[in-house]
């Protein structure tokens, strides 16, 4: 190593030697410096651009299959309206008829019990929501029980005309309802069904096209055990075209549903019952968008502004703040026709209704991808002459490996299956009543299959699918519900400990 001491030592030497030596020193230092700078540059570049291998520990986790337990689902019950048959008592809900409900389980016996109390005074009746439960299968203790049920109701009473179908679903503590409207002529009822033995305390968060809705009465809503509460969204705020409701409960868990009815002037504009969409997610899949007849809908639209909610429309809401870059793909089923694709920035905190224009008659799957989690649902209408109806299509969770669904006792049921994967899926549909069929869903595509009403099917032999069932009565009526994985909350779970 070179040190300045060297110069001092050499100081008394003849002048010529100093300069020679000093020159050598300077040269050596310059060389050392250049080498050092070179090393530094090379090192930084290497650290930046070289793909260095990464040692990654494998987190120790184990897939735990929960011990099977009784499965329980809640069926939403009858269509409701405010005011009774005589148009009186305008703040009190009352039922319109009763739905036809169908259910089945892989373990055999099912216990079905109507709710004991309801704001709509349907307690203990067939119009009340009902709890269906299947006890653990003692013979096959380790095997997961498949339980499913669904209900359909065709309403035609005064201004309430339409087809509504819903599946029996799992009560939970946190649900997002995307759909409904409190604009003129639109009535949206929120039903909160508590199937448990303890009271539930519910808090609602409401959002509209202009942001969060602050209203009295959104918190501390007590839902009695085995009871149903019915609330009108208009009671919180009127003239919200695009509400989104976040239902959070503590204590007993809740199944929340929305029921929307539309009246244009005096003409009925349809009726629907629909359940929660999936939790906020960066990937939302909405299978089963059925456009029955574009021409019929367009014919009705000349009726004026109040018919503006007839074309298919996508409702998006991102909780939180900022803007969320979002891509929407509408993919036609069975590979026919053209879809649509668009990108937009969704402002978080405000609900956006996005018309999906120019869809031909046919069926579609809507996929919403976003940078941040959001909730999504699609509204679609169907018309036949003056008669028209609509349905809200919530995003559905993915099914994996094994699932079961019940086709409600409704008209013209069609099963829609969407395969998000990169390889074709062949799924076997086995009817509980006997009979089976194999359906192949090509990679990244969707298919529609006609199914039998009032039948429960088991789906096996696939990896990942999304599904929905649609109903059309050929007279403008339309209804749809999504397929849900079995035993939500009792699928195997990976535990890191």
């Amino acid at each position, binding site marked *: *190593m*070179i*040190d*300045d001491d060297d110069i001092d030592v050499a100081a008394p030497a003849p002048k010529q030697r100093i300069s020679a030596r000093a020159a050598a020193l300077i040269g050596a*230092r310059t060389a*050392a*410096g250049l080498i*050092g*700078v070179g*090393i*530094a540059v090379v*090192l*930084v*570049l290497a*650290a*930046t*651009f070289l793909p*260095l291998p*990464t*040692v*990654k*520990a*494998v*987190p*120790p*986790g*184990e897939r*735990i*299959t*929960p*011990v*099977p*337990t*009784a*499965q329980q689902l809640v069926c939403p019950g009858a269509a409701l309206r405010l005011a009774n048959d005589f148009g009186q008592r305008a703040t009190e809900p009352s039922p319109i008829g009763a739905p036809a409900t169908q259910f089945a389980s892989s373990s055999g016996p099912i216990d079905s019990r109507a709710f004991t109390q309801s704001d709509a005074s349907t307690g203990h009746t067939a119009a009340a929501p009902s709890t269906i439960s299947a006890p653990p299968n003692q013979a096959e203790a380790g095997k997961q029980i498949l339980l499913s049920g669904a209900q359909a109701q065709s309403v035609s009473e005064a201004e309430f005309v339409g087809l509504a179908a819903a599946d029996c679903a*799992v009560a*939970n*503590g*946190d649900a997002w309802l995307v759909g409904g409207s409190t604009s003129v002529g639109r009535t949206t009822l929120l039903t909160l069904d508590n199937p*448990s*033995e303890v009271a539930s305390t519910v808090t609602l968060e409401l959002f509209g096209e202009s942001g969060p809705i602050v209203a009295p009465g959104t918190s501390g809503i007590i839902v009695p055990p085995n009871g149903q509460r019915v609330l009108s969204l208009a009671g919180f705020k009127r003239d919200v075209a695009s509400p989104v409701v976040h239902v959070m*409960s*503590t*204590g007993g*868990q809740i199944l929340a549903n929305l029921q929307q009815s539309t009246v244009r002037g005096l003409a009925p504009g349809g009726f629907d019952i629909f359940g929660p969409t999936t*939790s906020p*997610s*960066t990937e939302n899949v909405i299978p089963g968008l059925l456009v029955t007849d574009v021409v019929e809908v367009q014919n009705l639209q000349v009726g004026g502004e109040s018919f503006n909610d007839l074309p298919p429309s996508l409702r998006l809401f991102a909780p939180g703040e900022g803007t969320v870059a979002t891509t929407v793909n509408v993919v036609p089923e069975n590979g026919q026709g053209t879809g649509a694709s668009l990108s937009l920035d969704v402002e978080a905190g405000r609900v956006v209704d996005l018309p999906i224009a120019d869809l031909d008659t046919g069926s579609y799957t809507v996929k919403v991808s976003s940078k*941040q*989690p959001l909730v999504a649902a699609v509204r679609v209408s169907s018309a036949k002459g003056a008669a028209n109806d609509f349905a809200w299509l919530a995003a559905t969770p993915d099914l994996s490996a094994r699932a079961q669904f019940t086709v409600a006792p409704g008209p013209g049921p069609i099963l829609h299956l969407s395969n998000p994967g990169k390889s074709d899926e062949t799924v076997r549909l086995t009817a509980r009543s006997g009979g089976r069929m194999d359906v192949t869903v090509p990679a990244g595509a969707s298919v529609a299959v006609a199914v039998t009403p009032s039948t429960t099917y088991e789906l096996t032999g696939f990896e990942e699918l999304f599904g929905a069932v649609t109903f059309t009565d050929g007279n403008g009526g339309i209804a749809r519900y999504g397929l849900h994985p079995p*035993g*939500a*909350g*009792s699928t*195997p*779970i*990976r*535990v*890191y*400990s």
Partner: protein
Amino acid sequence: MQPRVIAVLVAQNGAQYLPRTLAALATQTRRPDALIAVDAGSTDGTRELLAAANPAELVSAPRHKGFGAAIARALSLGEPHDNEWLWLLGHDNAPEPNTLAALLGAVEVAPSVAIAGPKQMRWDEPDVIAGFGETLTRFGRSLSVIHDELDQAQHDTASDFLGVAEGGMLVRRSVFAALGGFDRSLTSADAALDFSIRARLAGHRVIGVPSARVASVGPAELFGRRSLSPAAQNQVRRFAQLHRRLVYAAGAAVPLHWLGLLPIALGRSFMHVLTKQPTLIAGEFGAALGAVFDGRVWEARANLARTRKLGWAAIGELRMPGAEVRERQAQERAAVLHTAPTSRVGPGFFVGGGAWVVLVAAIVGFVAFGHFSDAQALTGGGLVPLSSTVGELWSHVGYGWHDVGAGFTGAADPFSYVLAVLGSLTFWSPSTSVVIVYLAALPLAALGAWYCAARFSARAWAPAVAAVAWTAAPPFISALNEGRLGVVLTHILLPVLVLAAVNAARSWSMAAVAALLFAVVAACTPVLVPALLLVLVVWILARPTSAHRLAGIPIPAAVLFAPLIVQQLGRVNPLGLIAEPGVPVLSQESTGWQLALGSSDLGLNGWSAALDAAGAPAGVAPVVAIVALAPFLVLALLALFVPGTARSVPALLIALLGFVTAVIGTHLQVTILGAETTGVWPGAGLSLYWLGLTGAAIVAVEALGRASALPAFLAAIGLVVIGIPAFTSAASGTSAVEASNGRLLPAFVSAEAASRGNLGTLQLTAQSDGVAAAVHRGQGTTLDEQSTLAATDTRLDRADRRLGVLAGNISSRSGFDVASELDALQIGFVLVPDASDGAVGMRHRLVDALDGNRSLIPIGNTADGYLWHYDVGAGTPPRGPSAIGTPLGIGILAVQALVVLMTVLLAIPTTRRARLRAPGATRRLGQTEAEPDDD
């Protein structure tokens, strides 16, 4: 009758001294009547020299049997005469011409005198007394009566001594024979003294003759050796003392003395550590063991009993009184201090601006972290509160059961020791110590950096620039803002470690300080250990003569890490050793060029976010960061081009090692958080990187002189500028760290756990594809409870699996008997903290399942997440023995405590000591000198 004198000249490899000695013998005014030369196994030209002197006899004696044995060998040859005297000489004992005459003169006038000794003068300084007369303290330690004094005839009246040295001793042959000669066990030290004492006890007198002078190169221990380490000298002298003690003691007391040998050796070893002479310890035990197995004690006791005529009281007056012993020790200490080398002239702390920099750092530190000043504890980022009592704090160290995750038996991180010591400083509230660290971090860093830089520079403001660079170092501020306590401590201590390690080359005390600091730095940031060891190895190679001190620096760290190393190797997970201790925190990987700019996390030390918020385009932040740091980085690299390469190259090598450590660390994702893994936070490596850069920049500032004013000023300004967003974030309280009330779990849990310390809280954290389960016991898992063994474990043990089954079922709608398992594990609460965006759905499932569980009573949303209560019955959770519950745990604690205690004792500054060296061994002849070597 004229006395007859036989000179016995014993030589052992004394060729360089013999010519002068033989010549001096030849020029005696009273020539000895006969010369017996003894060659004690010399390997140089000694034998030839002796033969050339024409001795009456030239005998060979065995090597290493000592002076006494050589004399005995010589005397066995001739027949004794009446009034015959032996004049014992070593090869270096060149007498002055009148020496023998003076000795004989003294003994002739006093018939009771059996032994007379001359003054021993230094070989090359004939006017300095090397030694004159020997005596004992009351405890039996031998010492010279007079030594190392300029001879100004001030001792010429002294005559009666307890003993005299063998070199130049004149002894009556009949007495020598009657007493049985020198003790065979005492081969060098104390042999003559012991012989003199026996002569006195036999009724003879021992006198010193001031007018007789012989030369001497050193004490008896050095005879025949070129040099003698303090350790060896101590062993020889100590053994001699123990041997004499066993010989002199009353018969009944011998077993007592014998039993005390090893315990006393242990006690004296502690003293040696305290007085910075750890090398003496081996000799201490060597001497004690030698005495334990000393078979010649009985022979010597019998010899003494046979010849003794007087009681021990007879020699009592000749011992040195205690007061005098203490005074002499005090004088020796004073003399050493006086000769201590004057300290190097460097810039003064107050004159050189160091005080200003530290003051400004203190003010900035207060502005940034002052809002913590009334906090009980800090939390957020990598920080959680410490245990609430000192007792709990110390219960988390060592090898035993740890309530982390599902709980496990294993070694605690050495970082737990650091936290335990730190927390004990504020024993009334351990977490307060972390608050104090935050408040004092900046001025402490400035102070350490200033003193370290001042050690290497002569210019006043170079250390000030170093202090600014070190205090504003981006990895340091990031560590403070993210609550990486280990990196904060490392950053504060690194310059002090450098200072200690540099001084360790010359001082045991500093080596011990360096060892302690190394252990703390290693415990705080294990990832730095490879780089630091490499630097240490280079430093040892550069200072091979100090290798013994420098090589010991990693020992305390090695001992503290040993149990962890064994366990991690047992798991075949050696990389787990470098995991950052403390609460595992996910860190975003910074890219190579961002690391080079000192940015330990993405975002260029906060400039990206700050400029983003101000609406500047994305490309501006890198430009700002590069421009701000350019003067400093250029200055550091410039150091290679200017004089001072011997410092700049090592400094930049340190920087290189730090950078490489930072880069590699980010690629070693060994720490596991639920379903995620994270690499080692690059801040620690960057701290080392910054140390090297700062060192190099100082070299450039030094070399450039006045020309460096502007670049140094720009560098300092740039360093301050780069830290602005981070400081602002700290001052405005938007950093991850925030004041805490010391609670780790919701207040409801704390209240319940206050009366039930074992009560468990099951924490279920939703992951994107599952759930991470962990159990907190009592008040929660504190910072000192965290374990890298748990955080790097890639396997599931039985407790993990059991917890997994519970967690999997409780997170599901399940028929599992959750209640009895909660009872068995004594879990009274279930906590579900907020989840990341990707895990919201999974969290809903958890909340749904827990809400749907009839055994659990929902308590609601707390600051820490959703909480459920389970009314758990009384019981005890399964747990293993504590650190002091097994012999292994106790043993590990004891060894670690012993090593640390020894190091601390060694680190406490005490006295300086000299190494004994035979003159001429390396330098000129005839000089006993001390190296300024403070062992």
